[in-house]
Each structure stands twice: as structure tokens, then as C-alpha cells.
């Protein structure tokens, strides 16, 4: 081939519009379109958002960067035009505003919960296609993988407490959502899709519980090793910690389940 055309071909393929930018521009176009089109539904959703969702630094940053459409995108569900803005832009920018490893890990737990929350809402609204279900599952999976690898990182650094805090939050969140998924009225059209997603959630619950079991055995043995001579003292203090943690877990789990029953919001995810 003529070398000139080869060069053109290289450039043709490499010069691309970034997917996140594409979504961002689309968000702005939708906002632009809405400015001329006062449809009642868009107004209601934004009003609901104001009432229930706490604003925090990450979302604020995303909104400042992305404008009104990114704000409106927070309520988007898979299949909505603004959904790509939510997951491709808002969530990425927010992630950058979580600085510590703990904060980042907690954010991933929130995002995994948010994916399950979206499924719950979507399933009660309309039919979820097989392809959509696969997309939702793979997004959820990728958050779950990130959570697990962050837990491992904490473990390797010897920070068992942090590892278990994240693991227990994730476990509580998964269980709360599993319960919710079981309670919604799916109807025949979404029965198999929701069932498959529940299977995925159940399997993650199994994973995270065994991770926690591993962490617990590690923390017990390391406390023993640390306090050598004062074995009696060590065992009571370990027991004390375990009791305290169980209570914390119960509170968290109760809190998660209680607010999980509240429509439209979830304690385990912040918007």
C-alpha cells in the first residue's frame, strides 16, 4: 500500500473520542434538550434526589466537573441515556476523591451495593434483557473483585482490622441486598434474570464469609504471638475485641437491613 495511505490508516484508527467524554457530551446534550422541554418526569426525579441523597465531596466534584447533567445522572438506571454518565464519569471522578485505601475500599463496597440497588429498581419497572443482566453482573463482579483485592492488600500489610472492617461491611451489604432481591415482586418476565443475579450475590457472600473466617483466625493468632508472656491478658483482650466487633457487625447489619426496607435508598450506599 502507498505509504501515505498507510499513515492515514494509522491515524484513522488511533484518533478516537474517549468513551467518558462521549458520555459527558451526551449528558450535556440531554440537559440542553431538556432546557427546551419541560417534561414532568425529569423534574420529579431531580426533586426526589434533593430530598434523599446526601451530597458529599466526590459527587460535588463530579457535578462541578460535569455540570447539571452529571447531577441528574445520579438517578439513572441501566438503559437510561444518562447511565453511562453515572458509571463512566461521576463514579470515576468520585473515586478520585477518596484518598485513603480504606476510603477507596469503602467506596467500592458502596458501588457494588449501588449496582444491586439498580437491579432491584429496574426489575420492578420493566423487563431486563439477557444482555443487560450480563452487563449488570459484570459491573457488580468487577467491584467485588476490587473489594477482594483491597482486602488482600490490607492483609499483606498486616492491617487485619481494616481488612475485616471492609469485609464485614461488604458481607452485610450483600446480605441486605440478597434479602431485598428476594422480596421484590419480579413477575414472570424477570424471574430468571433476577434469580441468576441472586446466585451471583449468594456466591459472593460465601466468598466473603470465608475471607472473614481466614482473617479472624489470623488476628487471633497474631495477638497471641504479640503478647507472648501475658497470654491470659491477651486472650481476654482478644475476646473483648471479638465481642465488640460482633456487636458492631450486628448494628451495622441491622442498620443495613432496616434502611434496606426503606424505598429508594440504602444505608450501605451513599450518593
Amino acid at each position, binding site marked *: 500500500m502507498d505509504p*501515505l*495511505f498507510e*499513515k*492515514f490508516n*494509522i*491515524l*484513522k484508527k*488511533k*484518533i*478516537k*473520542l*474517549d468513551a467518558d*467524554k*462521549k458520555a459527558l*457530551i*451526551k449528558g*450535556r*446534550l*440531554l440537559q*440542553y*434538550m431538556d432546557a*427546551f*422541554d419541560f417534561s414532568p418526569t425529569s423534574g420529579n426525579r431531580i426533586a426526589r434526589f434533593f430530598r434523599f441523597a446526601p451530597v458529599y465531596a466526590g459527587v460535588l466534584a463530579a457535578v462541578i466537573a460535569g455540570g447539571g447533567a452529571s447531577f441528574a445522572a445520579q438517578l439513572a438506571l441501566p438503559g437510561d*441515556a444518562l447511565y453511562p454518565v453515572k458509571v463512566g464519569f461521576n463514579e470515576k471522578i468520585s473515586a478520585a476523591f477518596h484518598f485513603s485505601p480504606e476510603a477507596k475500599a469503602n467506596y467500592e463496597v458502596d458501588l457494588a451495593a449501588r449496582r444491586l440497588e439498580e437491579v432491584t429498581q429496574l426489575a420492578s419497572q420493566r423487563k431486563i434483557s439477557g444482555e443487560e443482566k450480563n452487563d449488570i453482573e459484570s459491573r457488580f463482579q468487577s467491584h467485588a473483585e476490587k473489594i477482594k483485592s483491597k482486602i488482600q492488600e490490607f492483609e499483606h500489610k498486616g492491617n487485619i482490622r481494616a481488612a475485616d472492617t471492609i469485609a464485614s461491611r461488604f458481607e452485610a451489604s450483600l446480605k441486605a441486598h440478597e434479602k431485598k432481591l428476594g422480596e421484590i415482586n419480579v413477575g414472570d418476565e424477570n424471574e430468571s434474570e433476577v434469580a441468576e443475579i441472586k446466585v451471583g450475590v449468594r456466591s459472593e457472600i460465601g466468598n466473603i464469609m470465608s475471607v472473614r473466617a481466614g482473617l479472624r483466625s489470623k488476628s487471633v493468632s497474631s495477638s497471641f504471638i504479640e503478647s507472648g508472656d501475658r497470654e491470659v491478658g491477651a486472650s481476654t483482650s482478644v475476646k473483648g475485641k471479638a465481642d465488640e466487633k460482633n456487636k458492631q457487625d450486628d448494628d451495622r447489619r441491622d442498620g443495613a437491613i432496616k434502611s434496606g426496607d426503606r424505598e429508594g435508598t440504602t444505608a450501605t450506599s451513599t450518593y
Partner: protein
Amino acid sequence: MSNTQKKKFLEAYDAYADAIYRYCFFRVFSRARAEELVQETFMKIWQYIRDGKKVDNMRAFAYRIATNLIIDDSRKKKEQSLDAALEESDALEPSYDGRREIETQATLKEIMRAMEYLEEDERRILTLRYIEDLDPKDIAEILGISANSASVQINRALGKLKKHFKN
């Protein structure tokens, strides 16, 4: 503004935004400006639809709007050599995800240098033909010229580019 209109418009965006971006990039050699032009192009398209006007060939229409926006742009800016534009622009910076596409950048620089010897309308028609892969008939529609005229201009511009490319 019916929902079908909205849906069709958004489908057009999904289908053509990437191409319009690429086209604009090769005209202005700036990522940021090209992104803005995509947005401006589709805003104008939406206005057109909203005003009740019908669009037969959306793809060609999008290119035409973009072309005119770029012409407006160049009228506002004072004449500037491509070299100076290269200095200023973000075209040759590493892409957003941090990967340095060395080969692409070298290639881009080569093409830009050769294009510098061409007139605006020659660059435009070569971009439409060889970057956007549009055939002369579509190009004619976009530029508002005859198909014959388009073919002639393409060949002339290509010949000129090849001459400067060899050097």
C-alpha cells in the same frame, strides 16, 4: 419535541459522534477543541430538528454543520502556521489514559507537516475522503458542490500532498 425525535437524535449522536470528533480533530488538531465542536455540532443539529426541519441524510448533515463551525472558527482566529498550532495544541500530548503512542504521534506530525502546504479546502476534502472514508458523492453533498467537482478536487489535493510528503 416528540420522544421518537429525541430517540432518533440520540441514536444519531451514538452513531456519528466519534466520526465527527475525528473529522474535527484533523481540522483543528486539538483534542479539547474537537470535543467542543462535537457538542456544538449536535446542539445545532438538535435546534434544527426542534425547529421542525427535516433531515434526509443525518450523517452528511452532521459533517456539514461541523465543517461550517470550523470555518467560523478559522475566520475568528488570525492566520497561524500549522507549526505554531502544533506548539500550542494538545494534539501531541500523551492521551488521557497516559499511554504514549509514539508511533501515532510521529505519524501525526508527518501528516500535519505535509498538510501545512495545502489550502484549508484541500485539507478539508482530503480529511473527508481519506480519514472519514466518505465517497465523492457524499462529500459533494456535504460541501454543496457537484460530485464531479469533488473528485477533481480530491485528486488535485492528493497530488499536492504526495509531493510534499515525499520531501
